[in-house]
């Protein structure tokens, strides 16, 4: 001890260093800090670039889904072909299938050409009708069956253009590709251009993308997200209605009331593990329990909602417990100290303070559930569903689709127009997620301002 002090004291008098020049150690420290900052910056930039590329490609691919080419035509509705018995009875008129309606549409196209004095070489009447979506005859038939009195009149209809024609205006189809494409001919493209010039054909915002149900592989232009949005909405309602109360009640019990013993430790570990279980396992569980054992219908939002609830519960419980833990114990003591019961102390004081955290956890859980695909594939929500489910609560048991599954579904189809649809659906999904997160942020601000 004395040696050390005397050694320092006598051998070297403290060196007088200038503050204006850095010593070696400081330089080294500063260099290390600068290096670390650079790494950090590079990492952030890499992340940003990846995000921008991803978003860019999705928007680039998917923006087209929000506009669509429509053709407006005057269609004659001859009674002798559509209502052979002449009774205007929709049940009898059903005998005429969509094949009976498609010539009417083709004729309408030809007539509009003639009226405007356009002639295109090598274009048959059937080809002229081919620029209209295969969905159009069904649309026409539904209209006529619903309004039999309109027979023998000429009405204006706005039909979807065929997917290839639509693709021509989105750059997917060219004259060169049309040469070798058996679904579209160069003459049809010429026809479309001519119709565009006279204003019969136009591109508009595509509300059908949000409201229409899915369509078969031959008619990508008609495919929409209607059923998927409703299915996802139903499932979110179920998840919210089940996971939030169950999760919050379980967390409050575990955090505030349960005795701390082996059993509660075990439960805690299990909940943490449950959060890490791959989602597809929940799908198998749902298939085994809800469909095979409980006999709930396949493809139904109720089953999807239950499975997603199971999946979301651990997330909500963990977030809720964390935010309950972060409430200072002195608040609980203060409440107990003036004679509040445990329950009053929790509900009057602890829970309001924990609410922002609980809300954030819940919305993050919901957002996860909204984007979840794998478990839904297993319980049959991947089915092709064109029927809209009924209103809740019966609708929970009707077959439906879901947004992420619809994306998956569309990427499986061969027609390139579905790539655009899938990307469009991803954009819709992302917008929903951003909205949910914005709501979470807003609610949190709201709650935090209270104290």
């Amino acid at each position: 001890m004395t040696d050390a002090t005397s050694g320092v004291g006598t051998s070297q008098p403290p060196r007088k260093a200038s503050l204006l020049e850095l010593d070696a150690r400081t330089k080294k420290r500063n260099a290390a800090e600068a290096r670390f900052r650079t790494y950090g910056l590079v990492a952030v930039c890499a992340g940003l670039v990846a995000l921008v590329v991803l978003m860019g490609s999705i928007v680039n691919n998917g923006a087209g889904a929000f506009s669509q080419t429509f053709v407006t035509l005057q269609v004659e509705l001859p009674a002798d072909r559509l209502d052979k018995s002449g009774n205007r009875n929709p049940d009898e008129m059903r005998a005429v299938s969509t094949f009976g309606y498609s010539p009417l549409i083709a004729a309408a196209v030809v007539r509009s050409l003639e009226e405007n004095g356009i002639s295109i070489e090598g274009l048959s009447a059937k080809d002229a009708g081919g620029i209209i979506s295969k969905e159009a005859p069904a649309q026409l038939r539904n209209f006529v069956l619903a309004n039999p009195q309109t027979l023998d009149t000429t009405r204006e209809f706005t039909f979807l253009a065929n997917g290839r024609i639509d693709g021509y205006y989105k750059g997917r189809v060219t004259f060169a590709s049309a040469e070798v494409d058996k679904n579209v001919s160069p003459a049809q493209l010429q026809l479309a251009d001519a119709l565009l010039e006279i204003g019969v054909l136009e591109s508009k915002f595509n509300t059908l993308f949000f409201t229409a149900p899915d369509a078969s592989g031959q008619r990508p232009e008609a495919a929409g997200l209607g059923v998927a949005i409703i299915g996802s909405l139903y499932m979110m309602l179920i998840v919210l209605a089940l996971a939030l109360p169950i999760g919050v009640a379980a967390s409050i019990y575990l955090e505030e009331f349960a005795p701390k013993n082996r059993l509660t430790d075990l439960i805690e570990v299990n909940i943490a593990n449950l959060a890490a279980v791959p989602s597809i396992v929940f799908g198998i569980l749902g298939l085994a329990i809800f469909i095979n054992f409980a006999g709930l219908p396949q493809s139904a939002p109720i089953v999807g909602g239950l499975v997603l609830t199971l999946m979301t519960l651990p997330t909500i419980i963990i977030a809720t417990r964390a935010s309950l833990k972060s409430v200072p114990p002195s608040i609980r003591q203060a409440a107990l100290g003036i004679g509040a019961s445990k329950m009053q102390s929790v509900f009057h004081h602890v829970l309001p303070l924990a609410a922002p955290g609980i809300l954030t956890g819940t919305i993050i859980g919901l957002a996860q559930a909204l984007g979840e695909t794998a478990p839904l594939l297993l319980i049959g929500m991947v089915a092709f569903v064109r029927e809209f489910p009924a209103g809740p609560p019966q609708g929970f048991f009707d077959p439906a689709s879901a947004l992420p599954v619809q994306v998956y579904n569309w990427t499986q189809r061969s027609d390139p127009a579905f790539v655009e649809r899938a990307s469009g659906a991803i954009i819709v999904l992302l917008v929903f997620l951003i909205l949910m997160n914005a709501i979470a942020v807003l609610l949190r601000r709201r709650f935090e301002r209270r104290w």
Partner: protein
Amino acid sequence: MNDMRFTERNVDSTEIKIRAKNVDVFYGETHAIKGVDVDIPEKTVTAFIGPSGCGKSTFLRCLNRMNDTIDTCRVTGDIKLDDEDIYDKRVDPVQLRAKVGMVFQKPNPFPKSIYDNVAYGPRIHGLAGNKAELDQIVEKSLRRAALWGEVKDRLDAPGTGLSGGQQQRLCIARAVATEPEVLLMDEPCSALDPIATAQVEELIDELRARYSVVIVTHSMQQAARVSQKTAFFHLGELVEFGETGAIFTKPEDPRTESYITGRIG
């Protein structure tokens, strides 16, 4: 002076409010309180003094069963409030705590408005029939805690926005608003300036007219000023308990003497 003697006589004539016999407290394996017997009289201020960690707060928390909220804590022995065992199975600690209020060592206002802080107790115990009555209780409690003048214009402001000393007085107002029969105060003045301390001491003296007050303090002067009875704790044991004057002038135990004169602690 005359007044002083009057209150001292008053002490002797009143009955015992809390009677603790052979109380032991364990935190897991730690033996924090060892066989303590204390009789806390009615309408008196009793001071608990002793070095840090000797178990003053622990014993105080036994008196309103706040120790129940600590998982590892185990209390044995016999504590009676008005001759009723407060650790009896039939006693609901919630009901007990409404009678035996507490002010904590660290100020802990609710993160709500000043008004709501004070009104919370009366609300949950149904002490006010209507809004006007509640307003009255809030004002009276804040006045008694010597805080009314400072906050009367901002009752809607958050209680957590007050200064440390104001927060502590808010906690005192909150505790007296429920009209407890016994008020336990754990170093209520440790965060206060001399003026606020004097105001709180005045309040304590005033409360004595109706309640029994138990105050933990590290300030000998404060104990001497406000209390009629003093208990000296050391390492979990009750070393000496008696009239404040007697403890401070002629302590019986050498440990008490060394603590008071500043040799241990």
